[in-house]
């Protein structure tokens, strides 16, 4: 129970920081909407639904990357991560809280982005929305873990996409698959499995990322 109390306190702090600084969510919203506008004009007029579905996942991935890149910036600015690491709580609570906060920002951005996508391209199936939500969990689990690794380096802005994008390929495969086939069950299950596997891996190994 104490573990979840720590997670709640840390996640609440992240949401409060965003509410004050407004560093992440407005940028994500503007980026994803601007991306759809660009895609709308760059795709030929009678492009297939399949092409548009692929672009949806490209936009989601890069929007998430924008949020993940900023996730540990408040901790980096005043080296607050040292303070959190010294606290007698399980260090994985830092990862879980940061992941929950980033997930909240991503879902909020998508709440605007998905209707905009429907407006510009085509309506979305329930399976696509379910795939997006499942993908969000995996993106935030892996991305938060890699964000903590990257923030300790000088090449943070370069390192995060280099590490994250290859690991996000299964998410794109599952997401696009769930959106275009008649029976999306196995793709949704694949995304669920990805989430469970990587969340467990990141949860168990986060301690080694934040300690020397």
């Amino acid at each position, binding site marked *: 129970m*104490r573990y979840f*109390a*720590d997670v709640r*306190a*840390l996640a609440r*702090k992240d949401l*409060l*920081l965003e509410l*004050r*600084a407004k560093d992440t969510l407005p940028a994500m919203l503007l980026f994803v909407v601007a991306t759809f506008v660009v895609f709308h004009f760059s795709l030929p007029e009678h492009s297939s639904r399949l092409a548009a579905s692929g672009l949806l996942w490209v936009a989601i991935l890069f929007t998430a990357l924008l949020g993940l890149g900023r996730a540990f910036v*408040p901790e980096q*600015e*005043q*080296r*607050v991560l*040292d*303070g*959190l*690491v*010294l*606290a*007698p*709580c399980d260090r994985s609570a830092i990862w879980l809280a940061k992941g929950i906060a980033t997930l909240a920002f991503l879902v909020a951005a998508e709440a605007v982005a998905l209707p905009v996508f429907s407006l510009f391209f085509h309506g979305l199936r329930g399976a696509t929305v379910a795939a997006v939500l499942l993908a969000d969990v995996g993106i935030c689990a892996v991305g938060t873990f890699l964000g903590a690794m990257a923030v300790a380096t000088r090449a943070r802005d370069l390192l995060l996409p280099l590490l994250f994008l290859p690991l996000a390929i299964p998410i794109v495969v599952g997401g696009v698959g769930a959106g275009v086939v008649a029976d999306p069950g196995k793709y949704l299950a694949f995304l669920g499995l990805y989430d469970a596997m990587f969340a467990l891996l990141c949860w168990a190994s986060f301690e080694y990322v934040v300690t*020397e």
Partner: protein
Amino acid sequence: MLTASRLGKRYGDKRVLRGIDLELPRGGFLMVTGPNGSGKTTLLRICAGLARATEGKLSVEASRGAIGYLAHEPLVYRELSALENLELYGKLYRIPERRERIGMLLERYGLWDVRHDRVVSYSRGMTQRLALCRVLLHEPELLVLDEPFTALDAAGAELLDAQLAELHGERTVLVSTHDPDRVAPLATARLALA
């Protein structure tokens, strides 16, 4: 409380600390001096558990939650208020009656009236006072203070003098400083890094 034998630290090819031997009993007060780049901060980070020595051995008889570490940076969120920062640390350190403890520290360090203001609006000295409140919040057994008088005005420095005198003999303290005369009367051990 703290024993180090032939302690050393390398960052790649660069050696920043070499052959440190020290023994500090519970209640002891170690003053660490040395010029910039002599490894004071590295030694204190190792003692606080934030860095690993690459050579030698270190034994610290204090759990992670019983260490209070004051760094060059205040380790507080600039967009949160003093109260919100201390509340967060209070929860993570599971401090009983934390509201009273936080109120007492803010009052003592002259931050009570600005407790709801964001840290970003504080002067460097006020931020250092808040950092001291953060360090003292959980009443640590081992205090690791890296140049604690930095940025403090005369009144702030006097408050810290009084605090250190109060803790003297009751808590184990490691202090690095460029102002040895200020801390020397309390020191039970000295380490001069070259």
